[in-house]
């Protein structure tokens, strides 16, 4: 898999959007499909330049609908595939995500978020955090990760592919314009030091085609690629574990969809990642994710150093599945929980639901269309603490 066009280990000064594609290549992705949209265009341009160099295929599709649907065919065709887009394009991909959930198809969508609704603007936003989880029609869950640095655009793209393969699910990388366009030193480790997960296949388990269950048999079913003699019928209708679309019954529907939800939600402790700092003896806490975490950390450090505010820092790396149990374990009884988001308080909903008895006050700190400045967060903290 290694070839001379893969990046050699070392340091590079890269944009987040470019780092994402290098991560995809390292993870073994060799199919990219997309449609140009600001501020995600550099993801696509990097793929156009880099994928053929490493033996991969790149295609500019006619829209985001087909870009995302293409991933379904590419994935069952045996490839690790991804597309990159920004919020308006992400809306168009919900149909494919929904199909990806029911057909348990691994693929990765990078959403370099911009503000909305409508065309919104081309700056930075986090207004798709709910859409990522709830935008698709129907039940079922998926995984969404929120990077906040150029290094994480690389690392989390690899993690996204690993999760997609391990849990047989679409994975969304919820980036934003700031981290997408940010340039910073990126460290590329040797390929041998990168953990790469591939799908588990029935061949490896000695399962014959006639006994193979593409949608059952274990919590995360084994996945045979097309072309391997397993005669897989991929379907989007409620189905039996073998892909057989039988007469509908509510019991069948429940069994079919419930497992697809549970394989993600019941394993939240294995999937979710959280970063914490300054958690000892705190009276207040900032809960953040994505690029605003950078501002939040700066603000927390300044508030502690300059005014001695006992405030802690908790960053959600995985937004979905939402790690309610982990949060409840990590977070002590506090006075105020601050949540800075580049939206009007979207993740505040699951946060408040999970921690309703853990804090007296929940304070949303919105910043629309642009990254919070430390002064915005600090002024909000000081204002609340004066109350």
């Amino acid at each position, binding site marked *: 898999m290694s070839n001379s066009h893969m990046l050699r280990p070392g340091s590079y000064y890269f944009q987040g959007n470019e780092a994402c594609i290098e991560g995809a290549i390292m993870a073994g992705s060799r199919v990219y499909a997309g449609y140009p949209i600001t501020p995600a265009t550099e993801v696509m341009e990097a793929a156009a330049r880099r994928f053929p160099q490493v033996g991969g295929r790149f295609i500019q599709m006619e829209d985001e609908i087909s870009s995302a*649907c293409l991933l379904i065919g590419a994935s069952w*065709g045996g490839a690790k595939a991804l597309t990159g887009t920004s919020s308006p394009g992400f809306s168009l991909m919900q149909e494919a995500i929904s199909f990806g959930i029911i057909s348990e198809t691994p693929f990765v969508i990078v959403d370099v978020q911009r503000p909305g609704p409508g065309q919104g603007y081309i700056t930075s936003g986090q207004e798709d955090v709910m859409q990522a989880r709830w935008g698709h029609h129907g039940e079922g869950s998926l995984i969404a990760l929120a990077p906040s640095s150029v290094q994480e655009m690389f690392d989390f793209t690899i993690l996204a592919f690993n999760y997609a393969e391990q849990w047989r699910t679409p994975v969304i990388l919820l980036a934003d314009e700031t981290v997408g366009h940010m340039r910073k030193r990126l460290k590329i480790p040797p390929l041998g030091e990168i953990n790469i997960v591939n799908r588990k296949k029935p061949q490896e388990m000695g399962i014959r085609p006639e006994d193979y269950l593409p949608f059952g048999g274990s919590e995360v079913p084994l996945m045979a690629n097309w072309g391997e003699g397993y005669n897989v019928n991929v379907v989007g209708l409620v189905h039996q574990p*073998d892909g057989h679309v039988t007469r509908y019954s509510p019991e069948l529907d429940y069994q079919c969809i419930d497992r697809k939800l549970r394989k993600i939600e019941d394993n939240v402790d294995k999937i979710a990642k959280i970063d914490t700092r300054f958690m000892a003896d705190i009276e207040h806490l900032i809960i953040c994710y994505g690029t605003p975490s950078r501002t939040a950390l700066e603000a927390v450090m300044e508030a502690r150093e300059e005014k001695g505010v006992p405030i802690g820092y908790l960053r959600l790396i995985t937004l979905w599945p939402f790690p309610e149990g982990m949060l409840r374990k990590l977070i002590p009884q506090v006075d105020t929980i601050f949540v800075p988001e580049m939206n009007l308080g979207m993740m505040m909903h699951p946060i408040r639901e999970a921690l309703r008895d853990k804090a007296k006050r929940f304070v949303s700190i919105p910043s629309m269309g642009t990254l919070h400045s430390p002064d915005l967060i600090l002024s909000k903290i000081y204002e609340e603490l004066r109350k």
Partner: protein
Amino acid sequence: MKHPMLKYMKETGPCGDRLPTILCPGCGAGQVLNYTLHAVDQIIKEDKIAKERFLFISGIGCSSRLTTHYLNFDSAWTLHGRAPAVATGALLANPEFKIILFTGDGDVGAIGGNHFIHVCRRNLDMTILCMNNALYGMTGGQVAPTTPRGDYTTTTPYGNVENSFVLCKLAEVAGASYVARWTTAHPQQAIRSIKHGIRKKGTSFIEILSQCPVHAKKSAVEILRSYKTKTVKAKNAEKGDNRIPIGEFLDIEQPEWFESFQKIIDSFASEERKDQNE
């Protein structure tokens, strides 16, 4: 003893019997499946192509139901109109696939129209079989982009005021390599065209006028007979002939997407071999 094409179908599976098909009595889609399997059977024998290389993909609609769980091939029954996009993905992952798309006139002419013309434009190597019944069958007989002007359907209760698409012409101008039209009453010709389409490098579009006895309120036999009288071989059609032209309309050689893209990949691979030798 049983039907010779049942060897390519899953009569039963771990979760029970899969046949008969869901299709209504006399549905043309079943016939198209039969013709397609005959074509595939002949190609497997004549060209010594492994069965594993065939891949059937469909969208939504009656015709797309052919790909639910009946086929003992790799298949995908996907989203309405999106089969061309899913097939493009499969090809990008593995260009060795022999892809056959089952679509209908609504699937490929309306909701998936954009994907369809762009597959043709890219000349991607797949065979698109479009079963045209000139309406939406599965949802109960609504107007389709192929419904003739003036026709009455459940959503044109006062008559259709729109022009209709000629899908073969659309495929031609969009850039397909092989375009043909037959009806379900032309099994031998259809099989010949499907075989040619599968062998053709590039996009093949084969429209097959296919009966919906339920919504046409006529028997399958009646419609099949009318297909013989209402159509004319394109080359025999004279000016002013109102019959539907059938036959092969286009058969050209032109660069196909994958071959062209592979040259780019190969240029980097050879650069790398050079690097290693130095």
